[in-house]
């Protein structure tokens, strides 16, 4: 425990800026993965244990597109669009067959696909770790804001994730499709009786969730090594985020992810040997005080 370091940082504007942006970066990537997880659970009532695989595929799709085209924008697009298509196929061909089954069966199917997807990546891209490399446009010195260090690429990352959060939030709250999705989450039988194709909605939600995880993977690809199985550790943290925020709540996912990011960022200064433990401790406190999570009321 190094509380002096933590207190020193809280008293220094430069340190506050650096550590806060550090927390935002960690949190925003986690949010993109966790929001897909929570969205799928909210509408489909399925705990998608294979969700981390979409993060992995997003990173690999982006790296491949970047290698062939040299375009970072196209790489992001391929990462997101590729995983959306993959999500749609996965839901229609496999997951849609186990909606009526018990939770154990759903978990087993998802876990089987975790292993299958990892092996598919191993067969296509090889077992060794890979690196996409930072696009030349972002190979620039970091910005200094109030003395704090902020890399330009991370500003883009935070911006994209925030934009995704706003579009998603407004889309679900205001648009007709959003209302249909919310209705399907609440009462799928009634939605179906009104002549709306619920299968299409389910497939669409799964594709959207996959796309968000794929976008997170694509955004992470320039700064994280790519390896088969890379989705698993992100998945665990995403589960923590959804448990803290409340399963099914988008706002909860955002707040939960940001809190985890900030805990990791400032915890590494004050509690360097207990940073991971702090995350779990916080989750336990939330579960004990609010078993449905911070925004659990929004669970459909």
């Amino acid at each position, binding site marked *: 425990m190094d509380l002096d*370091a933590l207190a020193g*940082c809280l008293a220094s504007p430069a*340190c506050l800026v*650096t*550590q806060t942006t*550090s*927390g935002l*970066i*960690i949190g925003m*990537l986690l949010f993109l993965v966790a929001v897909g997880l929570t969205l799928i659970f909210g509408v489909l009532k399925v705990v998608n244990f294979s969700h981390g695989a979409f993060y992995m595929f997003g990173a690999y799709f982006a790296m491949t597109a970047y290698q062939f085209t040299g375009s970072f924008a196209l790489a992001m697009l391929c990462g997101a669009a590729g995983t959306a298509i993959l999500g749609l196929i996965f839901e229609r061909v496999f997951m849609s067959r186990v909606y009526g089954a018990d939770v154990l069966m759903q978990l087993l199917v998802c876990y089987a696909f975790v292993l299958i997807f990892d092996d598919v990546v*191993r067969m296509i891209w090889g*077992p*060794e*770790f*890979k*690196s*996409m*490399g*930072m696009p030349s446009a*972002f*190979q620039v*010195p*970091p910005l200094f804001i109030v003395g704090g*260090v902020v*890399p*330009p*690429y*991370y500003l883009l990352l935070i911006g994209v994730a925030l934009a995704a959060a706003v579009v998603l939030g407004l889309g679900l709250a205001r648009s007709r499709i959003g209302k249909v999705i919310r209705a399907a989450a609440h009462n799928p039988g009634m939605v179906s009786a009104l002549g709306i194709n619920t299968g299409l909605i389910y497939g669409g939600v799964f594709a959207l969730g996959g796309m968000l995880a794929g976008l997170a993977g694509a955004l*992470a690809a*320039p*700064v*994280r*090594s790519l*390896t088969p*199985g*890379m989705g698993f*550790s*992100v998945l665990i943290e995403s589960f923590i985020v959804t448990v803290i925020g409340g399963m099914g709540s988008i706002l909860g996912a955002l707040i939960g992810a940001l809190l985890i990011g900030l805990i*990791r*960022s400032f*915890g*590494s*200064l004050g509690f*360097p*040997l207990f*940073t*991971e433990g702090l995350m779990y401790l916080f989750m336990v406190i939330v579960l004990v005080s609010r078993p449905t999570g911070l925004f659990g009321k929004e669970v459909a």
Partner: protein
Amino acid sequence: MKRTRTTGVSRRSTLALMGAGAATIAMPWVARAQAKTIKIGMPTILSGRVAQLGTSSRNAVMLEVEKVNAAGGLAGRQIEMVIRDSKGQPQEAARISRELVNTDGCELLIDAEASSGAFAVHEVARDLGVFCIHTNSETSSLTADPKQHIPNAFRTARQGVHDSIVGGSYAAGIAKAKGLKKWATCSPDYAYGRDTTGEFTLYLKRFAPDVEIISDSWPKLFQPDYTEVVTKILQAKPQALYSCLWGGDLTSYIDQANIYALFTQMEVFAVNMADYTALTVVKNLPKGIHSGNRYIKTYPGTPENAAWGDAYKAKYNEYPTNWSWENATAIMLIAEASKKANSADGKKIAEVLRGLTIKCPFGADGTVTMRGEDQTLIGYAIGWGTTIPQEPYVPEVKAGDWKTILELEAEWKKSKGYT
């Protein structure tokens, strides 16, 4: 009328066959010793995050086995490798090793496991008495601790304490020259990371007593994001950083630290940087990272080493790794010991192997020696240098002095109560 014998199995032949069968069941090694081929079992990691290193171990072994077989094999017996995937799980490594000997009939073992699995395989070798060479475990105690000693187990992997002595001495020289007194460390939070970092700082402070460690970070193994670790180090404002992160963890760390311009703000010493697995993967490798040599074909700068690296690349379309040379050396030693013993028997090979010096492309002076007292490899090329972003990646390597290494190693063993 001429009586002809009918074809078939006579009573005498049947009795002889039954006798031979009974002897084989009761004494399987008799059948093995008479077999034309000799099976060598090899548990290693062929799946998961470190599969690349396990694969490179297998590749190096096969490269050398082909040469040995082309030259007539071990005392006239062709080598047949039986290689199994332990998935990096110690209990699986132990189970496979036992199976390789008891079921597959392997007479020798090459233990190409990381440290966690190597200790498990070591116990199997102790139990079965089978000849075994540990090729990848760098944890010093595996051979330094007399409690671990068994006459049938050897090690061709480099040792953590050797690396730390050379690294500490090299880093202290730079620390004194550049006035680097405030240091930070960032290493993976498991036995290898903790031990190696502890040994490095021990020798760094010994050679440069003014050095102070002002910050330490212990990210977990295979952690995807190091942002909070990078910013923590930036806040501490050290003059130098030591890390024994490796593989994908090291490349992630470099990519993430790069965009914070960390490498322009301090001298970085990353012992595992100079291995092709990391060097060829990082797209924006900063210039001037200090690293220990793992495997590079330009050090030692001999035609033999360059030829070996090129032959490996030509066969497998990728460069060898640190684990590759350690495994190739095992086959070279076994082949030479077998030749001298004129036998493929494990016990006879072990007897000759103790104290054996052979010509080897990976030797500091063109030779390596299997030290008799603790049955571990010495004399291999060991040094540190600074990286550049393209081949040869580490243009100049400052060689470690084996006389000093051995003296300090002896002191270290004494301090640990090993001697």
